[in-house]
């Protein structure tokens, strides 16, 4: 992991810009799982020089980009990512069954996993699988396995919900995916390290640290 650059952008980042920031922070040669949704954008910003190997829960290491007909790729329904979108192979890729795929995850072999989130607590609790609203059909997929598996679990999210409430909170109010599992939060307003000593701010975007701490209700 690269050291904090301490950089401050003059404006809030788009999710695509945030994906580039996360891609920059992933160490060379890492084995990485990118969760469904926003985190999949990170793949577009990883450089070949980084030599990052992508894991997909449905049984593949060395997953390539999305298959595109206009590039002349063979669209193969037997080769998809976790979001069931056709992808391509990369040289050196491998396939394995589901129990092995999750053993790889649960066993702590992946270096980094990046997940989306509804809420993250200051102590790293993650809520990203269920809104808890009655009538919603619950669906967890691999979220709980991913949350406790990788050596580093990063969250990629907007810092504030549509109603303006912070998503980095003192305690999650939504059903938990994992307890104390998130080590870093990448958001459009800043990057946070969640440590036993408290929340550390690595970078801020479009807002200064003092204002960010105030809006999040963080001490000092």
């Amino acid at each position, binding site marked *: 992991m690269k050291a904090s650059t301490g950089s401050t952008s003059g404006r809030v980042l788009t999710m695509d810009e945030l994906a580039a920031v996360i891609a920059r922070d992933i160490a060379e040669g890492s084995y990485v799982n990118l969760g469904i949704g926003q985190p999949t954008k990170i793949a577009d910003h990883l450089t070949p020089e980084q030599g990052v190997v992508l894991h*997909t*829960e*449905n*049984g*593949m290491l060395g997953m390539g980009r999305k298959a595109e007909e206009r590039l002349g790729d063979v*669209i*193969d*329904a*037997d*080769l*998809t990512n976790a979001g*069931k*979108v*056709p992808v391509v192979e990369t040289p050196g890729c491998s*396939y*394995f*069954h*589901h*129990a092995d*795929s*999750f*053993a790889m*995850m*649960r066993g702590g072999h992946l270096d980094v996993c990046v997940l989306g989130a509804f809420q993250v607590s200051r102590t790293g*609790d993650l809520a990203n699988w*269920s809104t808890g609203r009655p*009538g919603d*059909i*619950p*669906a*967890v*997929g*691999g*979220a*709980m*396995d991913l949350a*406790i*598996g990788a050596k580093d679990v990063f969250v990629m999210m907007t810092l504030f919900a549509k109603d303006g409430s912070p998503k980095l909170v003192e305690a999650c109010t939504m*059903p*938990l*995916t*994992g*307890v104390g599992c998130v080590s870093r939060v990448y958001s459009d307003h800043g990057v946070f390290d969640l440590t036993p000593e408290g929340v550390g701010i690595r970078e801020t975007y479009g807002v200064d640290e003092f204002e960010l701490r105030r809006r999040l209700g963080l001490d000092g």
Partner: protein
Amino acid sequence: MSRAQLLDSADEAVTGIEDGSTILIGGFGLAGMPFDLIDALIRQGATDLTVVANNAGNGEVGLAALLQAGRVRKVLCSFPRQVDSYVFDELYRAGRIELEVVPQGNLAERMRAAGAGIGAFFCPTGVGTPLAEGKETRTIEGRDYVLEYPIKGDYALVSAYRADAMGNLVYRRTARNFGPVMATAATTTIVQVGEVVPIGALDPEAIVTPSIYVDRIVQVEARHYTVEGAR
């Protein structure tokens, strides 16, 4: 386990499946879904089934068609809700189907345990979440774990790429997914394949599912479906 039977049709392959059976159905979305066996199961007529699968069907084909036919009492899966899971969604909202949501890795490992003769295992997934409520927990070397029990099937319906006449299997790309695990976890494992080759034609080093786990094999036509259908 006696040698696998090579059958002429999917209908022959699913004979004897009783009402109330637990059926493990392979596939991740549409990749690796045993369409021909499911269609044959619908024709066969067994009902009141418990289905274990990763998803709860897409569109109106495969598993979704089995649900639509009203044959399934309960689904154990990790991710029922998808853009095209409307058959399941309607049944669930109408209270006509039971759902047990299981984290995906637990689904796989619980079937692996069933196939491997493991009585139960302590797993860190889901600790402190609603899906672990009411389950026994234990702290081992400072980490918390939840006790998880095996999931055993009466039948497994699996799609593989190629079989030899013994029942040794190889899979294709990410269509492998749950197939090898489910093949070990059912009393009777029924496999549809794109091609059956002579004994000795598969590289023994490359066999993914050894023949001992396979009971019935049927060769089916390769199925072509649109990419849109796989999303």
